[in-house]
């Protein structure tokens, strides 16, 4: 019984990390139907930048504070200068451009940081645990990551549902031409969306780098988890993305316990099952 509870809790906490990976992707897809195939690489890029900043500042939290405005500006400019030109009826252009970006990021990271895996020094947080019972303890960092995922999910959903900016996001997503006639500059709105998505990417990269080691070519596997969480949860719903991430985390954890080689695999099986049974996801938005 305790072992079952342990599996569930560890899985949910792992799912928090996957939700962090996925929220940025969910936002970009929801606002502009953009599939960013470099999403995982941007998370790894921000992990490495956070690593460098942590070396300079001596604290992962100071590193994150410095990284956040950089990430927002980077996201805004990337959208404004590059990605806006790829958005249109043909999804191939944005796929090709972001795929190219992924290759560039991986190689630049390898050039600068070599192929060695690195980890951001969390000041002992990554090994701190709360012992709840004999054989059942919760890591402080996974708990923090889960709390961050929960807070960002609720924050993004409130932003979308309750604010002017959120209405602007939904309006350009719904009908770009009509939104222009309502005084909305879609290029600016898209760029703000990407800036916000990159804030989430900065959180994901920094926390991921504190929890485990990262190396330059890790991006594509993170992208896969992000995709799976978004699709299981349902496109365009942040709560769905969070639940999708948790479902993925729990199934992976169950798989790991059956056989250490099974974890990732069982996650993929559940994803395929979701595609077959509920292709529009658990919480699809009405469109």
């Amino acid at each position, binding site marked *: 019984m305790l072992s079952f509870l342990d599996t569930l809790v560890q899985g949910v906490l792992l799912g928090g990390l996957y939700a962090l990976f996925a929220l940025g992707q969910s936002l970009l897809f929801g606002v502009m139907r953009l599939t960013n195939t470099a999403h995982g690489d941007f998370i790894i890029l921000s992990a490495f930048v956070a690593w460098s900043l942590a070396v300079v500042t001596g604290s992962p939290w100071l590193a994150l504070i410095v990284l956040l405005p950089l990430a927002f500006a980077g996201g805004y400019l990337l959208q404004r200068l590059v990605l806006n030109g790829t958005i249109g009826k043909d999804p191939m252009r944005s796929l090709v451009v972001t795929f190219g970006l992924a290759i560039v990021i991986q190689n630049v990271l390898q050039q600068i940081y070599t192929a060695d895996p690195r980890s951001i020094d969390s000041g002992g947080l990554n090994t701190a645990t709360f012992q709840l019972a004999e054989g059942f303890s919760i890591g402080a960092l996974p708990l923090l990551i889960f709390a961050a995922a929960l807070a960002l999910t609720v924050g993004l959903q409130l932003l979308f549902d309750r604010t*002017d900016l959120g*209405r602007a996001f939904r309006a350009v997503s719904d009908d770009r031409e*009509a939104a222009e*006639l*309502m*005084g909305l500059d879609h290029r600016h709105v898209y760029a703000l969306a990407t800036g916000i998505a990159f804030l989430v990417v900065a959180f994901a990269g920094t926390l991921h780098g504190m929890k485990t080691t990262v190396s330059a070519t890790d991006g594509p596997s993170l992208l896969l988890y992000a995709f799976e969480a978004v699709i299981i949860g349902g496109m365009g719903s942040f709560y769905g993305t969070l639940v999708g991430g948790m479902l993925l985390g729990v199934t992976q954890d169950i798989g790991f316990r059956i056989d250490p080689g099974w974890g990732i695999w069982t996650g993929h099986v559940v994803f395929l099952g979701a595609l077959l049974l509920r292709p529009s996801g658990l919480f699809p938005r009405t469109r």
Partner: protein
Amino acid sequence: MGAILALDGVSKSYGALRVIDGLSLAVEEGETLGILGPNGAGKTTLFNLVSGDVRADAGQIRFGGHEISHEPPHRRCRLGIGRAYQVPQPFGAMTVFENLIVAASFGSQKREKETYDSAVQVLGETGLLSKANRLAGTLTLLDRKRLELARALATGPRLLLLDEIAGGLTEHEAMELVEEIRRIQRTGVTMLWIEHVVHALLAAAGRLLVLDAGRKIAEGAPVAVMGDPLVQRVYMGLAA
């Protein structure tokens, strides 16, 4: 009274087809100009050129003294050009109220709180208040047309472009619409109104413009224009 909107030698072609052909036009502040013409005359293209959905190949478009030919649609909206499409394009996944809030806060550059009152007022005037919290995608055609007008009004326009908003309405509904147009007239808003429901148009328009093949074939007081033999032949198909 100066011209709020002035077109000077404006042309637009799609491939070899010249849809608007050297059109010049002046619209006085506060007037309602009705636009008539057979299908394919270039009426909707004229609106697209004014709202910025398409760019002119040649000529100048001036609004309120500014040259706007090269401004993008969202800038023209903020300058005060509102538009109701022939086929309503509401933000279907948002509520009726949210549709208006978007229009009011970005189109008229008001703060969020200030937009609420004006949105409620516009909803009341257009008869949509009881449906404020419905998703726009679930509205009937008539209500979509009302929302289209309401949303254009919420941007706080000085010039309103109305594209066949009476089409598909019953006689009674069309007369209600005319009342609504007259009320908007009294607030001083200038209007360009494309309409095939001629009697509705005649009930509100102070002046008429008739287009054919991208050119102006008649312009002036409604009675004179409707009596023009050329207009009768081209538009109404009467043998003159």
